């Protein structure tokens, strides 16, 4: 529902420009003869409200690609545009949620959630923070310190802290890979529930093909380094998806085949 609304709003603008647009992104590490090409020319468009997952073999440069798209690193060639404007720096418009997390251990949950609320335009910041804490299931933990929370709860704090600032984009770099298997599955469902409440554009980087299939509208498979987009798959099934369904099993096999694995 929300998706349609957002699309309708975007439709009011003259051209439905993609939310995120990367053209010809290349990146080397090092200089001169020893330069190591990491990203070998990636172009992609991500529409407003779309959930795109990028999967690739480990070490292929997917994290580097993410850093470039989110503005934390500069490409050697090519550009990244957000809403049609070239973006060279990170901004609160797109918040990064990474594997190791960056919840501040010296602030309480509530202080962490209020961290990104700059200026006076947010009204009652504490109430807003508590609203999002409740949304990710952390009601009653507002005044806890991160060390008192489990890994899964910390991940919720991080997601909530991102959502509080109402970012248009969420960049998720293997967000759940540091969690145990059960918590990993639980967080997938949680994330979908949260995104159903407030639809964001999401770019997810993962090495977990099932996670990508479960969550994404579109899956891009990256090649080994220097990385390029090797294949793209649309996932049209409605949520909640059953990974055991024949369609999704076929999709999984097709993606794994792209990654060089045949079952």
């Amino acid at each position, binding site marked *: 529902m929300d998706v349609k609304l957002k699309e309708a709003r975007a439709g009011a603008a003259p051209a439905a420009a993609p939310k995120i647009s990367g053209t010809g992104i290349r990146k080397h590490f090092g200089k001169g003869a020893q330069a190591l090409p990491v990203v070998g020319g990636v172009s992609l468009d991500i529409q407003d409200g779309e959930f795109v997952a990028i999967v690739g073999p480990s070490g292929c440069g997917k994290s580097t690609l993410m850093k470039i798209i*989110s503005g*934390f690193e500069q490409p050697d060639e090519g550009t990244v545009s957000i809403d049609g404007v070239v973006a060279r720096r*990170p*901004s*609160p418009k797109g*918040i*990064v949620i*990474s594997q*190791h*997390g*960056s919840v*501040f*251990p*010296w*602030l309480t949950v509530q*202080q962490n959630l209020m*961290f*990104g609320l*700059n200026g006076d335009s947010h009204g009652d910041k504490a109430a807003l923070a508590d609203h999002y804490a409740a949304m990710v299931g952390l009601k009653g933990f507002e005044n806890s*310190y*991160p*060390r*008192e929370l489990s890994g899964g709860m910390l991940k919720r704090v991080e997601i909530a802290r991102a959502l509080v*600032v109402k970012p248009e984009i969420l960049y998720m770099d293997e967000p759940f890979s540091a969690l145990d298997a059960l918590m990993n599955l639980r967080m997938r469902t949680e994330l979908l529930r949260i995104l159903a409440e407030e639809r964001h554009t999401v770019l997810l980087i993962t090495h977990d093909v099932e996670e990508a299939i479960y969550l994404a509208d579109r899956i891009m498979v990256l090649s080994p380094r220097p990385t390029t987009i090797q294949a793209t798959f649309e996932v049209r099934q409605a949520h909640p998806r059953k990974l055991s369904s024949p369609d999704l099993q076929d999709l999984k096999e097709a993606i794994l085949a792209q990654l060089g694995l045949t079952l």
Partner: protein
Amino acid sequence: MEKLKNIWPSLALMAAIVAIWWIVVVQSESVIFPTPLQVVTGTLELAEDGTLWEHIGASLFRVGTGFLVAVLVAVPLGLWMGRVTGAWRTLNPLFQIMRPISPIAWIPLAILWFGVGEVSPIFLIFIAAVFPMIVQTASGVHTIERRYLHAAENFGVSRARLFRQVIVPAVLPEIVVGMRIGLGVAWLVVVAAEMIALRSGLGYLIIDSRNAGNRYDLVIAGMIIIGLIGLLLDGLMRLLEGLKSVRWRYGR
């Protein structure tokens, strides 16, 4: 009970040392070296006429003042050096050279610049405490994990908020460690400084007791009191480490 179990070996050791000391002094029939009992009576004598408290107060005042000034200089300077590469490159080599110079070596200069008075020992304590704290603070800033700085950058927070909510709390545990080192060195130095320059303080008590009639009971009393107060000061700094805003570092 559990605590008693942990400290009894060291209490037993101290008791053994006192016993051996006592036996050796009695056996050797030394006229100059005091027995433990003489040290205790000497201490009580000083405590009763009030001079002991004056000496302790004088030493603590000098350490307190010099240390406080050192904190006020070292923490902002360390934070600045940690954040600004140019400041680091310019100042760090200088401080690395100054740091290994024993504060005792500054005594002649202190006397030349400030004379024999209250300022000299305070200056020496400042010199002793300021460098370890600068170095510790700056290296604390350097070791802030990048993911936290990236998060702050991502949210586009103001410079003031970055300092108040990320850099200072992230470095606070390092600052406290630096303060603990600094206070420890400061206490070492105040005694040494007072031995040379002044008419009060525990260092003066030791030297004066020896010079004015070989009162070795008071020399040893002074030494023990210095040790105990040093322990107390360190305990105080440890309390700081237990503060909630510092403890994030030690949890988990």
